[in-house]
């Protein structure tokens, strides 16, 4: 019955395909960004959780600085059983050097476990003999199955070599959830201090079974990575256990001391019996003096229990990355969608007004209202549906995957599980459909209220008239006629003027924010390492050397040709916990002995640029971001915990500038106040002559060879970590900028298209009168440029605000951003937007050229 009517509808798509394309693309873009950004975070967490489950990643880990004997393990096991412990496994660790191949590689070897914290086989099989090992799968290209490796284990640093074998055969390649971060596999006292790969062997391969690590799983209802209630419950259990195992550790320390005291007494008595005449002199005997020293410097045993967030470096940072994307998804997609919606609204409304006479004809012929507006339903529905499907598909399978690849490049996680986020797809799709269908229907029905007769009359073009600007005669008279016309026209088509401005405003704001994120973050690292942090390495000293030995060590290091300056300090890692979540924040606490300044190594100044003198302050100095994160100001108390869970607090006397990493700086007097014991040095701060990484590697290796060194911490570790995050963000920014550019292009194209279509008669008239092609094009372009300019200016303000908002929440917890927008940012954004306007105008120029003057003039519409 309605065969030809439907034919007419089909022809609509054929003949105004560019409009269909515009609308569909705009909607697709909006849905793309919304669905993509909303899916990524949850998909990332899903992917990671699956990986963790596959490897049975342990809820918590207990680390001891002393080998755990059978009795120790039994005691710990008892505590675990009484406090929600469900499963545990003991792990022993030994670092070695692979000497097979051109460059030596530091390898960390552990025994594999079968009930918890398992490895996942990618190739081959688990070791069956004591001289077999499975290797990190990422080394699959350097080594092959069946290959024999020479691994050198040393017996220095008081670490007894428990793996006597020299040659090990690779029987498999594995992944392990303990090594999530590809670049940070661990710190070691061997060689240059960085663990480069890992391997697993049989428990029986260790000559003496002396594990230092216990992996723990708790009885939990839910074990879902990054889930709020899981993480909080996990942390709660760990917090409860820490004081309990502290007691065990203290008891063990006592036992060791008593053990050595007993030996001492034994020796003493032996020697005294051999030397009955001079019992007092015996005390001066060298071996007794040595024993005395030893007893005095017996390290205390410490057990540290940590949740996944703290013992597994990649775990926490990955969770934070996913969170960061969630944050971005709170704002960006809506700006996109809004602009897309506004332009679609304009386009579809315009379509309805264009079809005015057609509506009249159809109703004149006797078609019902629904039949007459059917075309809008079909058109709108199809473009909305197509746009939604396209956007949702690409958003889920492309955008989410690309973002993941950029962010998670650094993590040893498999490809993203790109699960469709049905809730958001539904929401985005519904909005898209509504926007495509409702505006034209609304306009059409409004038109159908008029009498058919009126519909059939050509619509009176929008009334021209004087604009308010003309009242300002001084200005108006100075304008050339061309510009007067341009201004009059702009105010004549008010709706379109507004839409253009809003569209450009949105796009410019997005561009500026995109560039701005980069501006604010990339400067940080350079600034910090040029202006604030001047030291290059911190050598941790063995707790068993006395202060004389420390000074001798310092002298030796100072004589190294690469070293410029050194300073003995107390260097500790403490933790703060933000009240909102259960995650701990690492803080580096550096304390300087009373008569020394840190100025040569760290520049301490407050945000008002005033220098800070540690020793004149009655309190501690904390870094900016730390103060902000913990909501403390000068005069407040900062609460923190040490490695053993002891709660401490200190008065904040000043806040210092710092960009990456949390720090606390304090003088000796403050240290004594807070820790209730006198300040002792435990590390040496070192400043090099050169700052590049190769001399630093050499230095680190040399330092590690010294028996007094327990480990070397490089100042550029934070730098590397932050840089990785920034790299990931840079990729994301690129995606945002590309999408914003696309949006700007489509917006400009659509609006200019409408402009030209609506004024075909005007343009034809101009051509007939004899205006050149350029003059005709420029008449429209002048208006577009003017509106684009206004949109850009407004976009500056919008971009500034959006950037500000994003920078509050986007950066990692321990990174302070320079809230700045470089002038080049504004320049580039402006140039880009104008470039898009020019490109669109060139396309339009072609279209205008093709306008058949006479045909356009004859048309009644």
């Amino acid at each position: 019955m309605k065969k030809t009517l439907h034919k007419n509808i089909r022809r609509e798509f054929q003949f105004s395909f560019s409009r269909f394309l515009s609308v569909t693309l705009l909607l697709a873009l909006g849905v793309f960004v919304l669905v993509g950004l909303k899916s990524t975070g949850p998909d990332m967490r899903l992917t990671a959780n699956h990986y963790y489950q596959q490897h049975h990643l342990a809820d918590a880990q207990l680390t001891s600085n002393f080998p755990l004997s059978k009795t120790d393990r039994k005691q710990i096991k008892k505590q675990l059983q009484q406090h929600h412990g469900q499963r545990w496994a003991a792990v022993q660790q030994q670092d070695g050097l692979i000497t097979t191949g051109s460059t030596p590689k530091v390898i960390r070897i552990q025994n594999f476990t079968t009930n918890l914290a398992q490895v996942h086989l990618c190739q081959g099989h688990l070791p069956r003999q004591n001289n077999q090992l499975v290797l990190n799968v990422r080394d699959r290209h350097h080594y092959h199955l069946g290959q024999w490796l020479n691994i050198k284990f040393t017996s220095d640093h008081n670490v007894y070599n428990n793996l006597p074998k020299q040659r090990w055969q690779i029987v498999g390649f594995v992944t392990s959830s303990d090594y999530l971060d590809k670049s940070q596999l661990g710190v070691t006292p061997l060689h240059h201090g960085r663990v480069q790969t890992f391997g697993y062997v049989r428990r029986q391969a260790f000559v003496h079974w002396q594990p230092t690590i216990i992996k723990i799983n708790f009885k939990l209802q839910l074990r879902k990575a990054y889930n709020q209630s899981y993480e909080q419950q996990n942390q709660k259990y760990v917090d409860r256990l820490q004081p309990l195992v502290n007691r065990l550790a203290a008891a063990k320390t006592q036992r060791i001391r008593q053990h050595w005291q007993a030996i001492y007494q034994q020796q003493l008595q032996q020697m005294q019996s051999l030397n009955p005449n001079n019992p007092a002199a015996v005390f001066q005997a060298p071996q007794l003096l040595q024993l005395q020293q030893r007893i005095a410097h017996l390290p205390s045993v410490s057990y540290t229990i940590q949740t996944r967030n703290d013992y597994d470096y990649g775990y926490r940072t990955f969770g934070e990355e996913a969170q960061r994307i969630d944050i971005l998804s709170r704002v960006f997609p809506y700006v996109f969608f809004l602009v897309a919606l506004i332009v679609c609204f304009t386009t579809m409304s315009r379509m309805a007004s264009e079809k005015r006479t057609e509506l009249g004809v159809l109703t004149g012929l006797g078609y019902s209202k629904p039949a007459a507006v059917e075309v809008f339903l079909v058109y709108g529905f199809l473009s909305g549906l197509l746009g939604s499907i396209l956007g949702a598909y690409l958003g889920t399978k492309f955008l989410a995957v690309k973002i993941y690849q950029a962010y998670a490049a650094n993590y040893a996680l498999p490809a993203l599980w790109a699960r469709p986020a049905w809730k958001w797809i539904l929401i985005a799709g519904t909005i898209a459909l509504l926007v495509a269908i409702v505006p034209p229907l609304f306009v059409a029905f409004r038109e159908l209220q008029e009498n058919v007769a009126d519909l059939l009359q050509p619509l009176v073009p929008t009334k021209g008239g004087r604009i308010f600007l003309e009242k300002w005669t001084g200005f108006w008279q100075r304008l050339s006629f061309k510009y007067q016309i341009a201004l009059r026209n702009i105010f004549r088509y008010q709706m379109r003027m507004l839409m253009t401005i809003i569209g450009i405003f949105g796009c410019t704001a997005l561009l500026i924010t995109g560039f701005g994120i980069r501006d604010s973050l990339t400067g940080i690292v350079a600034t910090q390492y040029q202006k604030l942090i001047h030291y290059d390495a911190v050598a941790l000293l063995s707790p068993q050397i006395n202060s004389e030995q420390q000074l001798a060590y310092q002298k030796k290091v100072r004589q190294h040709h690469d070293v410029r300056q050194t300073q003995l300090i107390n260097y500790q890692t403490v933790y703060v916990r933000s009240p909102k979540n259960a995650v701990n924040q690492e803080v580096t606490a550096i304390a300087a002995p009373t008569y020394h300044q840190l100025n040569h190594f760290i520049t301490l100044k407050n945000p008002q640029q005033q220098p800070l003198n540690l020793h004149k302050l009655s309190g501690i100095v904390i870094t900016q971001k730390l103060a902000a994160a913990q909501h403390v100001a000068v005069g407040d108390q900062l609460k923190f915990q040490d490695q053993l869970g002891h709660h401490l607090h200190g008065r904040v006397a000043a806040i210092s500038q710092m960009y990456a990493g949390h720090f606390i700086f304090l003088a000796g007097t403050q240290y004594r106040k807070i820790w209730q014991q006198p300040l002792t040095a435990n590390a040496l701060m070192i400043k090099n002559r050169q700052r590049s990484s190769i001399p630093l590697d050499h230095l680190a290796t040399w330092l590690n060879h010294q028996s007094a060194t327990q480990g070397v911490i490089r100042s550029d570790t934070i730098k590397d970590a932050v840089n990785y995050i920034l790299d990931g963000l840079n990729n994301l920014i690129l995606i945002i900028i590309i999408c914003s550019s696309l949006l700007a292009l489509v917006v400009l194209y659509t609006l200019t298209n409408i402009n030209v279509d609506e004024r075909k008669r005007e343009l034809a008239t101009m051509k007939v009168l004899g205006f050149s092609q350029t003059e005709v094009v420029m008449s429209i372009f002048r208006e577009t440029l003017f509106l684009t300019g206004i949109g850009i200016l407004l976009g500056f303000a919008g971009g500034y605000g959006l950037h500000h908002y994003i920078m509050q929440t986007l950066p990692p917890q321990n990174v302070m951003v320079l809230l700045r927008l470089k002038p080049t940012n504004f320049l580039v954004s402006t140039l880009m937007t104008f470039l898009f306007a020019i490109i669109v105008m060139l396309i339009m120029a072609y279209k205008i050229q093709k306008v058949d003057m006479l045909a356009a003039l004859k048309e009644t519409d």
Partner: protein
Amino acid sequence: MAYIELKHVFKIYNRGQNNEIRANNDLTFALNAGELTIIVGESGAGKSTLLDILGGMDTITAGSVRINNEDISHYNYRQLTAFRRRAVGFVFQFYNLLPNLTARENVALAAELVSQPAAIDDILQAVGLHTRQNNFPGELSGGEQQRVAIARAIVKNPALLLCDEPTGALDYHTGKKILKLLQDFCHSQNKNVIIVTHNQMIKPMADHILELADGQIKKDELNPTPTPVEQIEW
């Protein structure tokens, strides 16, 4: 019984206000079945308004309109639509063809509305567009487009054919051809054809002549001997 009957029909815009316009100011007349009626008047006399009322395209402010014993005076939108569908064929001054459909399809669009339309091919032959039926309106001349419009109006087999300045945009000879088409249709099919025009010279071709001025009927006269169009010169 008159086929079309109007009694005291008013069409007033902005009633009661300062700028009240009486497009039709108390019209009363009757047309018999099968009459070729011409409504003449200067621009602004109210001709098009009257035509729109007759075709059920516009409502009246007051009065009564009866067409073929059907009182359409108080019809609502839906009823008017139904009336138009089955009873009226309309030819506009500016053709108003659907640009996305070919000539034939434009005619088919109207044919599909009624249960017993005329054969499309016959109609296209009758207006002489059989060879151009697959062209789009953009490819047709003014005269050809108008003929498509007439074909579209006729194919529905309407009781009433209304034409608003059908030759307004056409040259002398083409216009004459169009008028001949309309005259032949009226007499061969015995349908009412009403033509609105400001051209006084074609009055002789009509059976019934209504002269309008200032929204009122100045002259209402019958012409017992209408002249065939081809014999009229102007």
